[in-house]
């Protein structure tokens, strides 16, 4: 089944304004891990908002696990598709970790015992069970964002969209988030859509798509995408660091292949040198 399916979707924020998303056809399979790449203003955040009904398309239709998104089923859809946003400070409602994680579960009217179980599950899934009664404000950026993910997981969604959730974090925090979502995808079978402009993060995905000016311009496995480096540059996207190192080594005359795996590159360099 398709987890998220966009059919010929167009959307603009203002009438007569430019389209943020134009005739977009895009689908994510259930259980898939898809990375959405794009420069600022490419329409990738609009995509996230359209997928859980925060925005309604001007044209075309959005289906989530087979249900056509409309006024009536908005909250059913939101239970199935959780969104984690960019700024951790602006998405926590409560001061204490467990209170914030409980928020979503309380909203849908679950009984107390069930909310308690959901908090256990969600905090364990993001590796924050020790911080259950901690103050959110005292956590690091990566930890705050993991709490935000837990808050979404408490609703037991079948898909999670991360809308540039790593953009404000330091490299270590980014690593934490990518690890958590990869594990959720592999172990819990949750469909993951990771929206980012950091190429490195796309490497772990099953599939990567590139957006530019509201259109889907490239798609394939992360490897395939990064092979097409001239094209990426025209969409204002930079290569992952390892890719850049490969390029530089090759330009300097070293016989290494183009790879995105640090281990492989290390081996090739070792062979060249010896």
């Amino acid at each position: 089944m398709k987890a998220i399916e966009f059919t010929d979707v167009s959307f603009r924020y203002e009438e007569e304004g430019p389209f943020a998303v134009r005739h977009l056809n895009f689908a994510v399979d259930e259980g898939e891990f898809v990375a959405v790449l794009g420069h600022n203003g490419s329409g990738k955040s609009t995509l996230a908002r359209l997928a859980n009904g925060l925005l309604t398309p001007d044209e075309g239709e959005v289906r989530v696990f087979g249900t056509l998104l409309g006024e009536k089923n908005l909250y059913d859809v939101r239970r199935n598709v959780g969104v984690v946003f960019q700024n951790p400070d602006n998405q926590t409602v409560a001061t204490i970790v467990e209170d914030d994680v409980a928020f979503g579960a309380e909203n849908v009217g679950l009984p107390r015992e069930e909310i308690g179980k959901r908090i256990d599950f969600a905090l364990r899934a993001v590796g924050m069970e020790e911080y259950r009664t901690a103050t959110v404000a005292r956590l690091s950026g990566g930890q705050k964002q993991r709490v935000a993910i837990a808050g979404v997981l408490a609703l037991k969604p079948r898909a999670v969209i991360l809308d540039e959730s790593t953009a404000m974090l330091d490299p270590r925090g980014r690593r934490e988030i990518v690890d958590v979502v990869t594990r959720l995808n592999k172990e819990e079978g949750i469909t993951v859509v990771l929206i980012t402009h950091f190429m490195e993060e796309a490497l772990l995905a099953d599939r990567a798509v590139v957006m530019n000016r509201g259109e889907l311009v490239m798609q394939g496995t992360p490897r395939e995408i990064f092979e097409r480096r001239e094209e990426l540059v025209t969409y204002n996207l930079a290569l992952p660091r390892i890719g850049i190192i490969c390029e530089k080594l090759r330009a300097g005359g070293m016989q290494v292949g183009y790879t995105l795996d640090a281990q492989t590159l290390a081996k090739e360099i070792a062979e060249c040198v010896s």
Partner: protein
Amino acid sequence: MKDVSFGQFYPVDSFVHRLDPRLKILFLIAYIVAIFLASNFYGLAACAAVLVLMVLFARIPFGKVLRSVRGVAFLVLFTAALNVLFYSGDTVYWQWGIFCVSFEGIIFSVFLALRLVLLVICSSLLTYTTTPVSLTDGVESLLTPLKWIRLPVHELALVMSIALRFIPILMDETSRIKNAQMARGADFESGGIIKKVKATIPILVPLLLSAFRRADELGDAMDARCYTGGKHRTKYKKLRFTWRDLIAFLLGAALITGVVLMKIWLPAPY
């Protein structure tokens, strides 16, 4: 800016922290009533003693408690000074035009200042020992009867808790903007009062803009987590009245009774 401690939860586990938030709110109200009922120093001394006891039970360092007073120190001194100058008493020490310093005026000002200080300490004790969420739950629970007259009680309580949660974030933001403006050569120190007030505009405008942006994002995040208002909503934490609450309740009741009794039978001093 960092040490503005009003409205910030102080996370330790203590007797006071574990009290039912409803009781704490009612206790605060009772305490305020007691402060203003107290008509002599004995009464105020009793109020102060109860407060010291509460602070000790709450395991909050006294330095932290006093810091909450610092924010209103100017206000307290200012009103006290005005009262000293304008109170018309019988035992006049000094008079000049409409200004007059009298024994009664001084006593009155000292009383007022003490009351304000106790009031501020007791209210910040409430926010030190109660997380915004349980404070909200308490307010919501206490105001439940008002749902009868269609007051959106749940929404009001939520607004309150979010406002409390954002105080430290907006404080940080203010100092960040201030530093950014100072780095661009803005001058917040010199000049008269009008110039100083004008100088805050470059801080307030970006602060307001960012607050709106944050509100917008928070709204989206709440929407995405299925928030639809108070209907059909359940609560993870249940409020429960325990033996601790009984003790605190008795303490509050004893304080009010004591103050009233002192008012009747202990007329002096002042």
